[in-house]
């Protein structure tokens, strides 16, 4: 007698956005608590743990990604307004930016070109298909921007979204160690590098190091979103022209 009741509930839950949205928030809440428990160890990055938990849960229950995304899309959607919201830290840091405008412009240009150029080049060198190369190209920009560019240059936007997240995690996990090794101690330089390479996930990590680094990372993420959108399609044409397959 219990069986059909439970099944009805499951049918309802698996088709309603409620479940997907709730498990996303619960998983992130747990992952974040775990992260704080480890003294904010970058290896325990909350995005990694919550994505792993959610994939595990969906696979165990045999739920498809598209069913999950019915609910997940509400969180995903907020990436758009969050990109617009970057105008605020950008504006607040504007006086420092003005003073550092030349180094910031040069570093940003180098960072954006290297991020896209090296990922296309390396993927091509290692035998990646053109679709993979194009999906990787905008990986250092924040998700909605990267997905838009990926679509324009012939990548798979949904795969790009995954690669964007993986890139952000890589940057957040390795960033602070890398900066120690190359002896870069200036918060502005660390923040700019983090924001250019690892967008929002890197910026979240940067804010934990210092608010100064976080502000610069947010600034770099905002500017590189803009620069990536302008430069990458053009860079792809240039690479195609110089190194035809």
């Amino acid at each position, binding site marked *: 007698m219990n069986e059909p009741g439970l099944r009805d509930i499951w049918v309802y839950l698996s088709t309603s956005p409620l479940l997907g949205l709730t498990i*996303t928030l619960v998983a992130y809440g747990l992952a974040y608590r775990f992260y704080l428990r480890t003294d904010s160890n970058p290896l325990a990055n909350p*995005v990694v743990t919550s994505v792993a938990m959610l994939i595990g849960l969906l*696979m165990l229950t045999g739920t498809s*990604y*598209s069913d999950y*995304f019915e609910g*997940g899309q509400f*969180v*995903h959607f*907020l*990436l*758009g*307004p*969050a990109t617009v*919201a*970057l105008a*605020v*830290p*950008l504006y*607040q840091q504007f006086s420092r930016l003005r*003073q550092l405008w*030349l180094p910031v412009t*040069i570093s*940003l240009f*180098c*960072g954006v070109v290297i991020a896209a150029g*090296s990922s296309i080049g*390396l*993927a091509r060198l290692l*035998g990646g298909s053109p679709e993979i190369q194009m999906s*990787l190209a905008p990986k250092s920009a924040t*998700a909605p*921007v990267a997905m838009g*560019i990926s679509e324009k240059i012939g990548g798979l936007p*949904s*795969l790009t979204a*995954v*690669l*964007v*997240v993986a*890139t*952000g995690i*890589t940057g957040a996990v*390795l960033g602070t160690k*890398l*900066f120690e090794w*190359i002896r*870069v101690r*200036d918060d*502005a*330089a*660390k923040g700019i*590098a983090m924001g*250019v390479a*690892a967008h*929002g*996930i890197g*910026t*979240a990590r940067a804010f934990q190091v210092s608010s100064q680094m976080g502000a610069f990372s947010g600034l770099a993420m905002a500017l590189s979103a803009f620069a990536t959108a302008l430069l990458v*399609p053009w860079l792809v044409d240039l690479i195609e022209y110089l190194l035809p397959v």
Partner: protein
Amino acid sequence: MQFLNGITLLLVYQLVGEVTVRLAGVPIPGPVLGMVMLFITLWIRGQAPESVEQASSALLAHLSLLFVPAGVGMMAHFDRIADEWIPITFALLLSTVITMVVTALVMQLTTRWLVKPVAATEEQGHE
């Protein structure tokens, strides 16, 4: 109410951005144009209104959460990632490391060369 006003404003800028990009055929994503327009507005006004500041810091405080559903999307691409895991993994890791190292070094060196006197006085002023 403040928060609601702020989030509404952010959505309005995104909407105008998306529509403009489509109408004008500009090659940049809508949210980015929205960001640029909001930035210009704040600059002209000379201050960020409380409502926009609240909504913006609320969204940006939990920025990593917003990437979680996209990350879960990995499960929809398992086959493709398994097929091409070598170029994907190595290109992604190496390119991210190279980008971070080069950008940090370029920023550090250009700051030293180009703005050292200004930066030094500024820092002294703060301390």
